[in-house]
């Protein structure tokens, strides 16, 4: 089956879609699935990491009995890589050493600069920067009364 999005490459994934009042499925190739946000975060990183991740995509690899599993949800690192989905918040702590370089790779090394839970007021984080920039004062315009 050919990808219904690009009409060129063979389809490898099926996603839910609504068409003419019905719930149906659309066939996508890996490239279009990735571009439309349905892809696996880890797909394509394998080669850049010396094939370490690629092995985990292969059936049966990475499911050793001694594999470290998240104590909260039971996911292994191989489960996360294969599904492209993290099991729970604790997984990010359990597999931090292995996930962090991949996250940096995809997100360009950035760290969080946005909102923190608890409110939208400006908050000082451990880094010492304000989460919300203070706006520069506007220049007073000809003779107006400053508010």
């Amino acid at each position, binding site marked *: 089956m050919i990808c*219904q*999005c*690009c*009409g060129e490459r063979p389809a490898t994934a099926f*996603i*839910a*879609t*609504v*068409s*003419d*009042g*019905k*719930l149906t499925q*659309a066939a996508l190739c890996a490239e279009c699935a990735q*571009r*439309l*946000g349905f892809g696996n*975060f880890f797909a394509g990183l394998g080669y850049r990491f010396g094939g370490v991740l690629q092995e985990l995509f292969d059936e049966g690899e990475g499911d050793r009995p001694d594999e470290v599993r998240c104590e*909260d*949800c*039971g*996911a292994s690192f191989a489960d996360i890589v294969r*599904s*492209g*989905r*993290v*099991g*729970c*918040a604790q997984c*990010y702590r359990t597999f931090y050493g292995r*996930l*962090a370089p*991949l*996250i940096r790779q*995809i*997100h*360009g*090394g*950035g*760290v*969080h*600069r*946005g*909102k*923190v*839970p*608890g*409110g*939208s007021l400006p908050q000082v*984080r*451990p880094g010492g920067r304000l*989460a*919300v*920039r203070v706006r520069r004062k506007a220049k007073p315009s000809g003779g107006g009364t400053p508010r």
Partner: protein
Amino acid sequence: MKKWYRSSGPESDVFLGSEAALSRNLDDTPFPGRMSGEQQREVIRRVRAAAENENSALAGTLRYVPLDGLTEEEAVSLAERRLAGAGFIAQRGGRGLLVSEDESLCVLINGENHLLIRAAGAGFSLREVYGRADTLDSILSRSLPFAFDRRFGYLTRNPADLGTGMTASLTLHLPALADSGAVPRIAAGLSRLRMSLRGTGFPAKKPRGAVYRLSNRMTLGLSEQEAVANLTGIARQVAEQEREARRKLAGDIAVQDAVSRSLGLLRSARLLRNDEFLELISLVRFGIATGFIPDLSYDVIDGLMIEVQPATLTLAAGRTMTAEERRAVRAQVVREALGARREGD
């Protein structure tokens, strides 16, 4: 109460709507995909308690809709009304949503993440809708422990969404850019800026009605305000390109003819297919923007574009219909909305 999509907002000539959606998870519960049925029910109970608590600022504003009790038509209508994506309604067990009466605020529960907090508004109103999603998020976070890490931000099931967990998007009507074939080139340029411009619906290559969605793809490394400002700046540029392309088309007598014929067809058709409606209404919307059609407003057009979608139309009619009956009801609703004179008037 009037639904948000039946009103017009700033710069409605190009912008049909704005949306901000925030992905959140509970720190103490496995993410969707690794939850038991009991855990799913417990997440729904906790989110509802946070939203429906009589001491909460939200008390009485959001109504709970369990997904597993919905018919396929009711579920598909949620997608047509842009309340939920197709992926969310495809698996209805253990899922639900909280929704405001005007449908501008909603919380999807147990979809890709435990919560998707979403605000929508008419026209180019991204800052305003982000403000409302932000407030809803802050209120819910008072009683729900959202998973968060100071380096990675809000912890999401898909690591691609880490950071703000925010998808901000604008729905644009781009008939002139679509006609000139410029959209793929613009989309390719935006992709390098980590923004996405693509047709709504599927397949997305050339959408019916020339309706596109512009959204941010960068969530880690910049704040919500910066992401909104970046998207706003880009959207202004795309809108200006569209207006420039419209000015070139507007003087063409063949285009003026197509606009007038489209309005004539919509005002007189007795049977109307959905794809035919979308193509005609797109030309009428173009006609309003370029001044050929002075007696219609965007709120009527944009409301119709949602209300005559197949599942939503069937639900409003309150009965099952054959395909032909649905085309007849669609034609009647459109004729009345566009002010066609009744027979004998």
